[in-house]
């Protein structure tokens, strides 16, 4: 990887940290510890399920919100504030800037997820008093959540490369919501006929399939996740992310920075 990409990524990470993005961890910690104490008092035999379900859903939601709201400003804010001028007037290629920004945000989310994962395991230990073998599947669910973040980051960057922050937020969040029901959309496409079938099928394959990446419920119920799904999801998420980043680069390479 080019050294310039690493420098841009580290600066993006530093920006997120200094803009107090990681403060969300405090809210997450409060939410989870409160839930663990409450669940410990009111649930019988399902404490583990509730804590894992709530914890992983919170990790996903917090991360998606951060990925969307930081991602949409990554390029547009730099253009608006003109900080980009002094970067691109140096020997930095435009694609390096986009890729560097992406890795910076992805790194921020990975660190964020790492700390939140510690919180989830701590809450689980508090309510269950020990770990069991199926708890290792929580790591797989966390891995899928990180894959989900990569897609959301790349989509936010794609929209940010040509649109305003507000519209980018609307587009990215809408895609996240639609993508969360991608399996239902595919089911609808399968049952439809004529032009509706074509449109629904196209939409089902264009929107990111976040429902395939959501194994939170299965993991909470201590069901195993097949290795085939891990491989499929890895390939799918990396491919989708790469395509969205290519789109962002193609648009940004042609953009006049007025």
């Amino acid at each position, binding site marked *: 990887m080019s050294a310039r990409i690493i420098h841009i990524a580290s600066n993006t990470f530093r920006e997120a940290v200094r803009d107090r993005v990681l403060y969300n961890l405090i809210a997450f910690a409060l939410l989870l510890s409160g839930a663990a104490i409450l669940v410990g008092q009111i649930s019988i035999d399902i404490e583990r399920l509730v804590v894992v379900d709530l914890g992983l859903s919170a990790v996903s939601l917090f991360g998606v919100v951060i990925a969307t709201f930081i991602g949409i400003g990554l390029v547009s804010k730099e253009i608006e504030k003109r900080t980009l001028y*002094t970067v691109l*007037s140096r020997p930095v290629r435009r694609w390096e800037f986009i890729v560097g920004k992406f890795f910076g945000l992805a790194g921020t989310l990975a660190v964020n997820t790492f700390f939140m994962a510690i919180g989830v395991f701590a809450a689980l230990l508090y309510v269950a008093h020990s770990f069991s073998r199926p708890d290792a599947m929580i790591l797989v669910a966390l891995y899928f959540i990180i894959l989900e973040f990569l897609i959301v980051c790349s989509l936010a960057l794609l929209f940010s490369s040509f649109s305003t922050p507000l519209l980018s937020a609307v587009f990215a969040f809408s895609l996240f919501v639609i993508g969360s029901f991608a399996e239902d959309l595919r089911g609808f496409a399968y049952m439809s006929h004529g032009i509706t079938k074509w449109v629904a099928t196209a939409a089902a394959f264009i929107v990111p399939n976040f429902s395939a990446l959501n194994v939170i419920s299965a993991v909470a119920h201590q069901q195993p996740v097949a290795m085939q799904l891990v491989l499929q999801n890895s390939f799918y998420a990396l491919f989708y992310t790469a395509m969205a980043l290519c789109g962002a680069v193609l648009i940004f390479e042609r953009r006049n920075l007025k």
Partner: protein
Amino acid sequence: MPAIEILGLEKTYLVGFWRKRPKRALRPLHLTVEEGEIFGFLGPNGAGKTTTLKMLMGLVFPTAGTARLLGHEWTDPQVKAQIGFLPEQPYFYDYLTAHELLDYYGQLSGVPAKDRKPRIEEVLAKVGLTDVKGVQLRKFSKGMLQRAGIAQAILHNPKLVFFDEPMSGLDPLGRREVRDLMEQLKHEGKTVFFSTHILSDAEALCDRVAIIHKGELRGVGAVEELTSSVQGKVEVIWQGTQIPASMKALSAECHVTGDRVRAVIQENQQDAAIDALRRERMRLIAITPLRTSLEAYFVEKLQHSQTTAGTSV
């Protein structure tokens, strides 16, 4: 080898809701700047100065034309390692300190790690920001940001430096310091290209200037050439309050100020004027060619272009 060769760069934006209405920001521009020059790019607001600079920096793509910087294609990323750029009214990552900002830019410009720290200290001292190097930029005043902008433009020791309105936001002392800095860059053999609409700065600093108005080049040349003697007139100054009749006979426009008389005569009459003052035993202080100011030349060019545009309609 010229430092900058602009070969017909032009820019037309498509404006309007459907982006169908063309708006010409820059007509084909041909300009050459030699190495080691301080070159002033003058024009009123909206003349096309910033558009030209942005095209040279690769921030805006030209509709047509090309350019060469330091003998290479201006799109070559490696050329950019030898170029410094200060944008107009710069704004930087405000969560960084001045030192961190320069370190980041040094990394992007490929300044080796071992050279970065001493170089950063050197440029911070040069722009007078050493005392605030650990302060986040969000606490900087406009003038301090301008200084930080100048520091980042010269950090990597570029051969060619572009400044877009470098005096903007600076107090008189700051402007003087920037002028001194530009002269220092010239003495170091660097080429300085700067845009401004403050003509006194350009007149004091530039070897050559170009004047641009409404996206079109209106004039280019050495400051001395553009401000050369007005219709061949000279200014004669002598001590005293008397105006000899022989001087009046030369049709001189004379003005008495304190114990000095200032007269403007035709250049071919200066020998006669010296003889006349000698005969009257008056002390001659100075004879200098009367020059028009750069401002007068600038205004004349702008008025001329407006008249031309008016008659052509």
